[in-house]
């Protein structure tokens, strides 16, 4: 089994050979490491992407807008780098659409890291497959294919508001139960056991 260190450094060096700058190569190394750690086919997709990279032109995108379409497939690396760099501004758009992205698996780690930067979960839909990116801690998905995914036709990215998965009633039920760990305070206990003094500001 290859170690994550080997995956990171090899992906970084290979990316430099393909003509990416050192800074972007570093990003790719970290991303492929993340994909492989989470069980997604990073090496496989990166390899295939590099095989096509020189012959087939990919569309580079600089400024990402609400809707991004191109007849030539977008490069997932450049789109990903710019997504990461612009995420604090893009967050206000709530939702972003791309059409036609090459090797969309390679875009996922950029979005996962962006989720950590803005402190919001990101919901990603690539064609019929869904991914929930949780602050770069984990990825939930209905995608289990380990194969190469050459093109994503439609990609939808949503920044999810930070909200609970439960309602107030459910919370109160649990909270009430937890209150049984507290001691009912008598006047005497209040006088003798409070550490902050008898008046708030003494």
């Amino acid at each position, binding site marked *: *089994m*290859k*170690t*994550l*260190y*080997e995956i990171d450094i090899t992906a970084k060096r290979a990316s430099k050979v393909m003509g990416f*700058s*050192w*800074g*972007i190569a*570093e*990003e790719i190394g*970290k991303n492929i490491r993340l994909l492989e750690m989470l069980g997604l086919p990073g090496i496989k997709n990166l390899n295939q992407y590099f095989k096509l990279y020189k012959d087939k032109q990919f569309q580079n995108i*600089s*400024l990402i807008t609400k809707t991004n379409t191109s007849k030539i497939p977008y490069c997932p690396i450049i789109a990903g*780098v*710019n997504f*990461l*760099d*612009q*995420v*604090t*501004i893009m967050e206000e758009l709530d939702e972003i659409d791309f059409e036609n992205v090459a090797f969309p698996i390679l875009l996922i780690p950029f979005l996962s*890291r962006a989720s*950590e*930067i803005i402190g919001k979960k990101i919901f990603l839909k690539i064609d019929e497959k869904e991914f929930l990116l949780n602050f770069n801690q984990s990825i939930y998905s209905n995608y289990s294919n380990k194969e190469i995914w050459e093109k994503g036709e439609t990609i939808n990215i949503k920044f999810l508001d930070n909200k609970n998965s439960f309602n107030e009633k459910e919370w109160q039920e649990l909270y009430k139960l937890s209150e049984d760990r507290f001691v009912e305070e008598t006047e005497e206990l209040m006088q003798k056991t409070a550490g902050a003094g008898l008046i708030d500001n003494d």
Partner: protein
Amino acid sequence: MKINLRDPNIVMKLSKLGSFHQSKLSFLRSFLREFKDWKYSRDLFNLDENGYGTAVYSFKKNKRTYSLVCFANKITAEERSDRVIATKWDASFALYDGTPTKKDLERLSDNVPKQEAGRLSYKELSLARANKSVRIFDHVVKGLSDGKQPDKELLSKVGYLYRTTAVYGSGKFGLADRFRIKNREEICGPFRLEMMLVYLARQFTFDQVNHIAKCKNPKKAVELDNDICGNLGIGNSTGLGLAPFIVNHPTLLNNWILARETALKKIREIKFVKKIEADVFKNCLNKSIKNVTSWNTDSEFQQKKIKELISDLNKFITLLEKEFSFEREYPFNDLYLWSEENLGDESIEYIVSMMMEPFDEIANLLVNQMSSEEEKYFSIPTSRNISDLREILEKQYSDLIKIDFSKKENNQYFWFISKNKREPRLADRYLNNCSDLEEPLAIAKDINKLYERSLIQNNNLTIGKFLIGNNDLRHVVRRTFITEKFPYAEIQDNTIGSKLMPIDMLRLKLSFFGANKFDPRSDKWLRINMFQGAPLPNDLKSFDDHWIYNSLS
């Protein structure tokens, strides 16, 4: 009194970093403090009469076991080389996570002796190889088999029976990635497992020499005296492999230096020093002189430094004995300021290390802060703007941005990775034609370029937008923001200039390992000694933390 941390622009100069010495913060010393309560045992010792075979040593505590698996191999004199180009070694080692099974030992015996050409698994934590110092090894075997202890003077000239030529860890060649073990309390200090490997390998060298002597002459042979063993360390022959590490791990480098600088600051801020503390300082200093006077090297560069060190230390000791009293306020601050005024870097840094000796409570807390979660600082804060970036560059890189890279001598060298050995090399840019494969270790040059570009940008431009057209400098944009938070993260020198002494970079790292007796063999590699004077594993429970000054006693 509040003392400021020393200025990174002074501390992080290579000539300064190349003058660092071991200290209480050094990894091999903190390793011994951490593992002193662990149960040590020799679990397997299956060597033939010539000392070839397999041995296993372990440290155990509660449910955790670390085992050193040693393979001693027969090699010819022609095959023995300390250089990285070697393919066979007298001994090879792997540190195993747990207790290896018979099947594990078989797998390891197929792979560990091959080193880089073999394959390890997530169950192995560190990998190394070592060669005999043949002259010393044969002398010791002969003496012991004749019933005599070896010539101490000869031993002191070399200081070890074996020297390691590489020690690997963290994900290399299949070894466990750091994330698998990083939360274990006992290995919270950097390189702790590598230190364990080297320490147990040292014990193997003693056991092996005793075993061969005994097999040679079972009736007459004696065992190597424990005091002599204690005064032997394990050598290490180190090349450029260490140098890029300190450039590639900026937050880790910061945490090492910051710990040292914080210790110095806290010690200088002590108003009244107790007599016992002053005595420990003076005692360690006096005893340590033997380590300096027995420091042998053929390197003129190092000989000059040692000569100056001895002369400076004599001045310092005279001051301590004749003019200085610790019965004053802030005595260590006064001593430090006097050193800065009167001594060279080699001696100032030597005294800084010595000052830590009486203060366990300062050093031990800092040791736990010397690792780094580097991933946390990888993201670039792209919502910041050019004005912020420029301000950091002007503050944190004030000397580097002044270097004129249009001058040939400032571009003299380049770093590359050898295809054959996957090891870093340094070559003259004007004599070699492969500089297009240069590694990104010319930080000063790239920072310079970044600063020039920042000057022509609008102050309010966000870093995110700046990067759209300047991603070729993305790696140094990242470093700049790291340096803002970690002021000691960057070497404040040109790592490709004609005046570069690469061994300064090696020495910096090795001083934090706890090595001494730096012996440069050229400007690109050196030999050192580790664990010389250290307690033997069976004596760890009651060891003296100042053991490093007891060698040759």
